[in-house]
């Protein structure tokens, strides 16, 4: 089991420490609903040190063949993502963010559970050199629509990053502007001591911490996937409706993607919303049924209670012939047929 390098200060902040992807991480501080709404209405910071951080160097053309979106056309200091490493069946090895440092150097943020797999996979499929920076730096995300009311507007533009810069007076390795919550914000990579100082400064500025449970509900409202739940090595981006590829280039898995686009797919990912009074969470693999419950037409991959909509939401895979937006299907929740309205992403309208 790994531990966030920031657990000391987080414990002092009353974090409820739990396990995620073999990492000890802060799950929440108060209630996930309060932390979630803080991000939607104001701003909060998250420890995301569990995510894999790899430095990849070598010939850009080699990386281009491994990754499903074009990277050659991007300028240095820009982020390409989300994109993916796919297997030869078009399934996800991982969905990643790629930071282009130069023509021959990239930083890649992987899902925590896939860090070692992707390190090995790149090694097996290319002559690129991979250095694991995960334990050298921690990573904080500051997210929320009012972020610039609390922090001086960063020089960094959306989907861009700066290396070796200052943030709140501290020397940090990387400052980027992206996120996984649907709100504006920043990410910072730095060593644990620096991040601890930054956390103290954020608190003084009035920015509160949030945990990984809120991060999960925030991403579900936006319809963003979580590896291992909503996507895995058997699911292609076409099935997931996750536009992480470019057909203007060659990459591993492209053939299968072309086939799926040409012939269609047997399942596609959509969201759903339960009625307000149905406070039951459809768990992973619960069956989605036809409206009268006679046929299995899909399965659930994620669900949560949306603090923003005040109802249960989720996502799953549905046979295309039943995948009409606005259709009312049923979900079998421990023998009970609960109505679920099929909805497209994002599941909330944030503006």
């Amino acid at each position, binding site marked *: 089991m790994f531990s966030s390098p920031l657990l000391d200060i987080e414990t002092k902040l009353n974090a409820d420490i739990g396990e995620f992807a073999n990492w000890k991480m802060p*799950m929440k501080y108060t209630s*996930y609903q309060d932390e979630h709404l803080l991000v939607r209405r104001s701003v909060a910071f998250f420890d995301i040190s569990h995510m894999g951080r790899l430095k990849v160097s070598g010939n850009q053309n080699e990386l281009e063949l491994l990754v499903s979106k074009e990277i050659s056309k991007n300028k240095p200091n820009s982020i390409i993502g989300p994109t993916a490493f796919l297997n030869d069946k078009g399934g996800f090895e991982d969905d990643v963010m790629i930071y282009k440092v130069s023509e021959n150097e990239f930083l890649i943020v992987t899902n925590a559970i896939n860090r070692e797999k992707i390190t090995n996979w790149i090694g097996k499929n290319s002559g690129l050199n991979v250095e694991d920076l995960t334990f050298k730096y921690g990573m904080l995300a500051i997210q929320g629509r009012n972020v610039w009311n609390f922090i001086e507007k960063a020089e960094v533009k959306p989907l861009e990053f700066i290396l070796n810069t200052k943030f709140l007076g501290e020397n940090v390795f990387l400052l980027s502007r992206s996120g996984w919550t649907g709100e504006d914000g920043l990410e910072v990579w730095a060593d644990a001591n620096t991040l601890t100082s930054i956390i103290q400064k954020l608190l003084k500025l009035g920015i509160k911490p949030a945990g990984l449970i809120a991060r999960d509900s925030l991403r579900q409202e936006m319809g963003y996937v979580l590896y291992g739940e909503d996507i895995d090595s058997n699911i292609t981006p076409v099935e997931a409706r996750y536009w992480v590829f470019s057909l203007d280039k060659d990459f591993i898995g492209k053939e299968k993607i072309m086939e799926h686009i040409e012939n269609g797919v047997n399942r596609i990912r959509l969201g759903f919303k339960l009625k307000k*009074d149905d406070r039951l*969470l459809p768990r992973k693999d619960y069956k989605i049924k036809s409206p009268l419950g006679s046929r299995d037409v899909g399965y659930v991959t994620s669900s949560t209670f949306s603090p923003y909509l005040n109802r249960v939401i989720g996502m799953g895979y549905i046979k295309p012939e039943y995948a009409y937006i606005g259709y009312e299907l049923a979900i079998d929740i421990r023998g009970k047929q609960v109505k679920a309205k099929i909805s497209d992403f994002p599941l909330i309208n944030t503006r």
Partner: protein
Amino acid sequence: MSVVIDGKYLILKDRHYTETDEWILINGNIATVGITDYAQKKLKDIVGIELPQVGREVIIGEQVAVVESVKAAADIFSPLSGSVLEVNKELQSSPETINKDPYGRGWIFKLKIKDEKEVSKLLNFEQYIISIKQREGI
């Protein structure tokens, strides 16, 4: 009167407990049932509840309710045999009350006790503390 285990989990002395983390407060032949502070902390944020029907006859150990949290759906078992006298309807719209006040406003249902001898099968607070310590390895 209360005890806090490992700086985290509050246990009250005035009630009985089960190995499945229900608490039971007995007043005459009426038992009020909820889940313990330990259980709500393990479940994390509670977002829903399925309550039993009032009037339902239950036997000791029978599944009577479900607590939905972001982490899991947890079955609530009846700690005693009897009939369901009352349920805490407020939990339907604000199930997070169980997180905020598990021993108070977060009570789940009241039971009319059928067989008072069954009460001796419940854990007292000292036994429940041992049970938690064993499970936590502390």
